[in-house]
């Protein structure tokens, strides 16, 4: 086993040939402590050694108090035998594409270390229900927290999903960190052309090693949607309430993480949920693109990453717009205020940007509702400056879409046409009175 310590603590442990998880006796000025050396996260100081006592508690011992360490027993790797799961003929095949995040790792109870799941059997040990829904195969493609993902990760996901769908999978489930799940879901919505099978993003807000994890319901729901529904779209399937009762199926381009930590953090924006899934059934709630099992999906990974997302604020100065251009960005999405406004003083800079061939798309910080640049003077000036109204697109979706569009054309007219055209359900033709949080109680 390696030694996860740094600095002074590392030097001390190294001197006594100690590695992580070794059983040791530590002699201090006050007496002896027997326990196992636990790994120490790198952000902690280098002045303490973590010991797991026989009663299960960890404590940190200051290295200044340690006079000697004796290794009583070296750590050993223990292989856990997990029964293999048989392939069931009558159940569909669903690949489980693992990208990282809370959903795909667990804590080892013996060591306390976090490690990724390696086999579907481990997941089935926790959620035996899954074995009755589909034949699941693990397809790890990378292991990243979602805040670290880049457009090239989106491409990798889309490419892998299309390969699976074109080679017999009824649908795919993508296990993903929740922070940027709605960016990835939007990206795949654009990159998977002619998609007619379920591509289901799933994550968890409470890690899977906790008994209270939301992953159980989320995964059951996600696998159900992939294996049983006729939804031919990219969707996000996450808790619909703080209870473990049902999950929403949300259109990938119409959902957003709206709470830092709640289970029901993902909320449909300007569009109703497609369906509600319980352990028992899938209940359809609104229109969706129907699946077609014989269809072939086309992976289109052409994308230009050089797009900037700007959140405006009162009193912001135009120099920021200027620097966006000088930094070499090829497109700008603005999350403006209200109906899609910016301080008037920055409009001339925006106009210069557009004149120089950099498309500017307007969305709103209000998140809910559609931008409308025709109502007020500021909006009209922005329109005149050449700003493309982003309709009811979420700022993040407009960002991803503009990257995709810039990967496909250079001409402003072509860019404008594509941005205003509904490609994957990102633009709603109408927004129902029901589709705003305070009205949800009417449901």
């Amino acid at each position, binding site marked *: 086993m390696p030694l996860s310590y740094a600095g002074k603590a590392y030097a001390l442990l190294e001197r006594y040939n100690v590695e992580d998880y070794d059983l040791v006796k530590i002699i201090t000025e*006050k007496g002896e402590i027997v326990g196992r050396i636990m790994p120490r996260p790198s952000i902690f100081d280098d002045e303490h050694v*973590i010991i797991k006592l026989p009663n299960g*508690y960890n*404590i940190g011992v200051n290295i200044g108090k340690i006079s000697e360490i004796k290794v009583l027993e070296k750590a050993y790797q223990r292989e856990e035998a997990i029964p293999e799961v048989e392939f069931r003929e009558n159940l569909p095949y669903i690949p489980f594409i693992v990208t990282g995040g809370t959903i795909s790792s667990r804590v080892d109870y013996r060591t306390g270390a976090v490690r990724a799941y390696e086999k579907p059997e481990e997941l089935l*040990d926790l959620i035996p229900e899954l074995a009755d829904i589909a034949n699941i195969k693990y397809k790890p493609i990378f292991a990243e927290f979602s805040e670290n993902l880049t457009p090239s990760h989106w491409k990798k996901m889309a490419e892998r999903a299309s390969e699976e769908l074109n080679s017999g999978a009824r649908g795919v489930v993508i296990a993903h960190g929740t922070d940027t799940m709605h960016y990835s879901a939007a990206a795949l919505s654009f990159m998977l052309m002619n998609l007619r099978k379920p591509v289901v993003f799933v994550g968890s807000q409470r890690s899977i090693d906790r008994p209270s994890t939301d992953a*159980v319901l989320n995964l059951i729901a996600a696998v159900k949607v992939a294996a049983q529904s006729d939804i031919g779209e990219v969707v996000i399937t996450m808790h619909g309430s703080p209870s473990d009762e049902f999950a929403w199926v949300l259109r990938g381009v119409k959902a957003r993480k709206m709470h830092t930590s709640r289970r029901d953090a993902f909320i449909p924006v300007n569009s109703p949920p497609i369906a509600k899934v319980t352990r028992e059934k899938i209940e359809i709630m609104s229109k969706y693109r129907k699946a077609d099992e014989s269809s072939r999906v086309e992976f289109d990974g052409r994308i230009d990453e050089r797009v900037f997302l700007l959140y405006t604020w009162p009193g912001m100065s135009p120099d920021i717009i200027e620097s966006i251009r000088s930094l070499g960005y090829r497109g700008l999405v603005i999350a403006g205020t209200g109906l899609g406004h910016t301080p008037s003083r920055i409009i001339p800079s925006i106009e210069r940007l557009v004149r120089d061939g950099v498309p500017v798309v307007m969305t709103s910080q209000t998140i809910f509702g559609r931008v409308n640049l025709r109502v007020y003077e500021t909006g009209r000036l922005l329109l005149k400056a050449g700003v493309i109204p982003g309709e009811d697109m979420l700022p993040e979706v407009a960002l991803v879409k503009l990257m995709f569009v810039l990967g496909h054309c250079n001409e402003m007219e072509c860019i404008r046409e594509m941005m205003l055209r509904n490609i994957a359900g990102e633009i709603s033709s109408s927004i129902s009175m029901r589709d705003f949080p305070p009205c949800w109680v009417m449901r």
Partner: protein
Amino acid sequence: MKEIKVGLEIHQRLRTHKLFCNCPSTLMEMEPDCWIMRMMGVSRSELGSIDPAARFELLRQRKFLYGIYFDGTCEVELDESPPLEMNKEAVEIAIKIAKMLNMDVVDEIHTMRKIVVDGSNTTGFQRTALIAIGDEKSMIRTDQGDVRIATLCLEEESAFIAETGPDFVKYRLDRLGIPLVEIATYPDIKSPEQAKEVALKIGRILRATGKVMRGIGTIRQDINVSIEGGARQEIKGVQEPDLIPIVISREVDRQLNLLKIRDEILERGITEEDIGGFFDLTDVLKRAEKGFVRKAIDSGGSAFAIYARKMKGLIGREIQPGRRLGTELASYAKVFAGVKGIIHSDELPNYGISSDLVAEIRKRLEIGEEDGFILVISDRRTAEIALKSVADRLRYAIKGVPEETRRALEDGNTEFMRPMPGSARMYPETDVLPVLSYPFLKALEGWKPEFPEDIIGRLVSYGISRDQAEEIFDEEKVELFERTSSLCKNLSRGFIASTLTSMMKYLRREGVKVELIPEDKLIETLLMVDQGALAKEAVENVIRDLAEDPNADVKEIARRYSMSQEELEKLIDDVISLHKDELMRAGEKAFSMLMGEVMKKVRGKVDGRIVSSKLRERIKKEISQKSL
């Protein structure tokens, strides 16, 4: 008596906000605003228990409903938000207690997750941190020898069970997360009485900090008991120290009786194969006469049974007052399958099951007169789980006493709660950063703890008796007494002390709910006496009325029991005119008789001294008028 080894774990709620969020540690009177349903995800490989399969099945089906309060609980209790930083005040109190117990505080405090899947924590684990470790100086001295302190932990209180059903448990979240210190002793205790003494001594030290919560349920003891030849038991939740010796000696009795049953089982040559089968007896029990059995079957239930060959008489054998081996079996069925209970052959005929039906059951099970059986009425799936757990427990009787976690009952008996967990599954709470103890210890340099003796000494210096001082301390009224004493300028400290202790005790014994009265109202009452606005004699009545209506206005109540100057004067006038002749005859010597008459009418509404001076004045006037 066989040799016993007892260790105590004392849990005390601290008087500060919750451990991992800023919600107040306040128990709510009203019903929760809303209920949230959760299920626990537990993997088969992580459940260590005597019957993982049954337990697993049960847990996966069970729904936990959590009652939340929009004001008073937050996202953290519901596990909808990660914990906040560990409550610094709670850490400080815990460290102070550790110091008072001469313990060694750890350098770096790590919060752990202790897996608890009964739903009592929304997270599925209890957050707990080891604060201090005992060494050779950490002792509780008793007449029967020293008892070493092992550890002091700071942990979260669990949620409060509001209701339990066959497939659900309702918990309220107001209690969840209140900081607790858990002090564990080594199993050095050798007698039931010594256990009580240790508990009382530790309790007193905790109270001396002035930072612990008071009242019912705020301190509770878990008792670890092992008996030579028997098995270790973890008994949870003894609230009254007086119960500790009873619980321990009854546990000893229970184990001895189980061992006697074991001996008899061996004598009868019973083996594991003698317990088993699974029979559907619905058609037989359909013919039961009126009673709950018939009712349950008529409303759609089915009856299932297992046999226990050669066991006649053993299942009904008493092991604790009022509890039989059958009661133990029933507890297993309740815990594992959520059924209401079981019926065993030693209690039949009964419940509408006649001796003819009993004979028919025996026939169906292919067993004879000397054999026993256990019945469960429920659906098939539940019955399978219930009877499997019953059979497992009954088979264990062949070996002796199983290690269990048991719940203390109010009468001192205990009942099965869950199998003894293996070594606790604990892993780091990665959402909470470790806390260095050094800054706390540094801030406490020069801090002199006040021990129970110090506080009692200080109370005595107020001029009250030692008995009163001890009573004030033990009843956790030090602060109330000192606050009242500092506010009252004239009232004797002895009167304040006896009002707060003996009067309260006497009224409580009469069934008056004095604990409902807010402290401020008590102080207000005593202040009125201090200022002469209320007679000492009226205090009892005011307190009685306050207990009836704790939110009432003290002044308003006091008015019922006081008399204005004018009223008193008029009353004196009346008495004097009524007894004019005697007064004329006896002169000032008539005072005591007149005083008696007046006091009868005043009935405690005015201080006797005031009455007497008024009366004297009036007599003087009367006599002088006369002599004019």
